């Protein structure tokens, strides 16, 4: 087929509008990223030499260790918990099924300061032990292992949620066939269920790792230096936003290559599924095994959720209710309001992109996939990229336009809610895309084809075939984005309009001064408010 013919075919497809909208979105996401890549026009040779000769090798080693550790631990926790709660029967299973999602609402930086507050040398636990064991006793818990555990405890729900919905939607026939063919429970897990859930698990681990890679706040609490440390040192220490952007774009390149490799290795395999588990026969666990699984689930829940909540509550009580004024409720309202709108917006746009990718083969699919890169950048670096693009628009387009209309030019985009919302969806598009795409991959292509054969138009196929099948994926995506926006700090700080302070802003202000106790009340409120959609989505997924 000649290029001209293929171009014409591409253009004449009824999905042109969809693709054009998709490309526009990709362009919007890539603009701030390109601003950062553009920093390479002026390489900061001196800072690079300094970093390379001092800290950089160590930082890269630290980052790799952290990624491996977190990747391994979130996979182990997420997949094992998902398999147990979906496929096995043990005491408390029904409760754990949703309880294990709750740690999602705990921001990693809050977990970090709680863990340090409880377990550190100067903390109450070791103080108590010193009373028993003598005053010379004590260990410094600020090490690699603690950082890995902290990240894994708050990030495993990504893997858990995605793996769980994958296991749930694996057809019972597939697993039954496996059993009939003589697979033991273990074999059917490793040889059938796990490989089939791979896209979902990979998406979950990918989200967890991107968040780890881009994190600064959590590692800063432990003074554990990673690649982002170099980025922030260049920016805040050497005042070179250029060098920071250059370092950040390397981070991005790494993530892009990894994502690409993962997709490539999936090759042409398809992960379509039949009906969801209808009459699921769960494995009944024997007494000791059942007890062990219950214990395992309780332990994870206790560490990842109960402990931080208890510590936050006790700090909040100690700090008193001086913060609980009207202003505090404004913060809460702003948080909820922004998170709600951003979640709807982001999931809508992510759905559009997911469809674009489904209907595009090969190269175009990769183009649409690049829209997810925003998540891999450290929040404040991305925020600056966004700010630079928007203030460019303000100055180069809107200001002349306003003068032309006879108005006094003033910045319209900077400091508006729209800009902040744009920042949220640029950042969290990847979060929404994970569940949506893995849900979409499991829609058997023959279904919409049949609908079309029966004469249904595009909209009708979307409404009556796709959306009902995608509902669990959409719900998961909404919850993830809502909670992530609630927790988001750097973009909110930089781009919020006057007076639009949120709970995360309050936490930032308190922790910036080292007053973790005063940060407890906003943190607690943030977690509880973030739980709202988690609980709602669980109820919705049960209601079916």
């Amino acid at each position: 087929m000649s290029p001209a013919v293929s171009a014409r075919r591409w253009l004449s497809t009824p999905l042109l509008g969809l693709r054009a909208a998709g490309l526009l979105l990709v362009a919007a996401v890539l603009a701030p990223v390109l601003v950062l890549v553009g920093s390479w026009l002026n390489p900061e040779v001196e800072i690079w030499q300094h970093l390379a000769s001092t800290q950089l090798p160590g930082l890269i080693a630290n980052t790799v260790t952290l990624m491996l550790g977190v990747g391994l631990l979130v996979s182990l926790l997420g997949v094992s918990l998902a398999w147990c709660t979906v496929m096995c029967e043990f005491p408390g299973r029904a409760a754990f099924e949703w309880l294990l999602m709750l740690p999602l609402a705990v921001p990693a930086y809050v977990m970090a300061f709680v863990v340090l507050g409880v377990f550190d040398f100067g903390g109450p636990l070791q103080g108590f032990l010193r009373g028993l064991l003598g005053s010379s006793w004590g260990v410094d818990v600020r090490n690699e292992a603690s950082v890995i555990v902290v990240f894994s405890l708050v990030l495993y729900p990504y893997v858990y949620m995605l793996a769980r919905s994958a296991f749930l939607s694996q057809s019972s026939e597939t697993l039954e066939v496996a059993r009939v063919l003589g697979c033991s429970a273990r074999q059917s897990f490793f040889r059938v269920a796990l490989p089939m859930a791979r896209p979902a698990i990979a998406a979950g681990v990918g989200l967890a790792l991107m968040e780890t890679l881009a994190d600064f706040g959590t590692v800063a609490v432990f003074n554990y230096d990673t690649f982002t440390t170099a980025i922030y040192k260049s920016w805040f220490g050497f005042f070179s936003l250029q060098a920071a952007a250059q370092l950040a774009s390397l981070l991005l390149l790494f993530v892009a290559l990894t994502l690409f490799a993962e997709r490539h290795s999936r090759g042409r395999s398809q992960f379509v599924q039949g009906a969801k588990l209808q009459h699921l026969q769960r494995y009944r666990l024997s007494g000791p095994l059942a007890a062990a699984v219950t214990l395992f689930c309780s332990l994870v829940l206790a560490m990842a959720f109960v402990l931080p909540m208890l510590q936050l509550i006790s700090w909040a009580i100690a700090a008193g209710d001086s913060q609980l004024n009207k202003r505090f409720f404004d913060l809460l309202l702003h948080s909820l309001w922004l998170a709600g709108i951003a979640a709807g917006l982001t999931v809508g746009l992510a759905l559009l992109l997911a469809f674009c990718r489904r209907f595009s083969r090969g190269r175009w699919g990769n183009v649409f996939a690049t829209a997810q890169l925003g998540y891999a950048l450290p929040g404040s670096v991305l925020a600056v990229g966004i700010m630079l693009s928007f203030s460019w628009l303000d100055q180069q387009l809107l200001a002349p336009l306003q003068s032309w209309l006879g108005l006094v030019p003033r910045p319209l985009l900077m400091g508006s809610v729209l800009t902040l919302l744009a920042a949220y969806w640029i950042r969290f598009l990847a979060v929404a895309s994970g569940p949506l795409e893995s849900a979409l991959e499991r829609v058997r292509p023959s279904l919409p084809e049949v609908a079309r054969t029966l004469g249904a138009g595009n909209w009708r196929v979307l409404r009556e075939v796709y959306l009902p099948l995608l509902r669990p994926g959409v719900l998961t995506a909404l919850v993830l984005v809502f909670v992530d926006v609630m927790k988001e700090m750097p973009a909110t700080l930089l781009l919020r309009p006057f007076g639009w302070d949120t709970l995360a802003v309050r936490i930032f202000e308190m922790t910036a001064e080292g007053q973790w106790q005063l940060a407890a009340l906003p943190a607690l409120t943030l977690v509880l408010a973030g739980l709202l959609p988690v609980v709602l989505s669980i109820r919705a997924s049960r209601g079916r």
Partner: protein
Amino acid sequence: MKFRLLLVLSLLSALAACGRSEAPAGPQLVVYSSRIEQLIKPIFDQFTADTGVQIRYVTDSAGPLLARLRAEGGNSPADVLVTVDVGNLWQAAELGLLAEQSSAQLQQNVPASLRDPQSRWVGLSIRARTIVYSSDRVDPAALSSYEQLADDSWSGRLCLRTAKKVYNQSLVATMISANGAERAEQVVRGWVDNLAVPPFSSDNKVIEAIAAGQCDVGVVNSYYLARMKAEDPSLPVALFWANQSGPAPLNRGVHVNISGAGVTAASKQPELALQLLEWLSAPAAQQAFAELNQEFPVNPQTPPSALLQHWGNFAADQVPVVEAGRRQAEAIRMMDRAGYR
């Protein structure tokens, strides 16, 4: 269907939300502040009560605020930049974000070493970074200067905050000014050798570690100790004013830094903005501004809070604070070489 409805609803409410950020009537100033809300709002409220001028502000770290001011250029709505640490003020001035303001009142209220030589920014409160020690295990007679903490006698007994914090960068920068780069690097290497545990993420943690017995001495900003002492007077940690005696340059005085402010280059109403700075430097506001965070007032006519007076007077390093900004990058490089994280 539901889905499209949701999308339309969210777009509509986003648009509606935009209308909410409209400006109030009457004269008003816009402040970008890296001093947190709790430490500025009460003062701004007082200013509004005194003058009728409304103040709107956003808070963030200094780095992002400078980036924002720079990106907004002449369009920026900001009139005043309030930030902590002279390094940030120096950088803002270097980037041309602050406008020169001549004011007799500021010159009178703020000592020259705490102002920009080119009058682009002015200090509003002083923060002293000094030595704290375990009152159980350390005889204060054994303490003398920052430099002396590099001695072998403190081996395995020192706690420091991370070198990534600008407070330590400014301290080392002024140490370079006083001792020369070579001697200062020896001192920093000595500190690193003496560390009991890897550096902490905050001054509070340093004080807690000393109280818990993880180490015996540390270097922190005095207000952190003041705050913790106010909560728990029995805390076994005490303060020592560093570098008060001995041969020069060891007798140069305690390292002081400032929180300060400047009028932005983009301000459309620099007179009104300057009025805010002058008001802040006057005795009435000085007392409140410093006391909110247990810092020292810059205005010599204003006495420090009762708690700070209890620690007695100290001689402050007279090197112009701008020096700390100028040498910040040099200090970071040196600390990186010395392995101080």
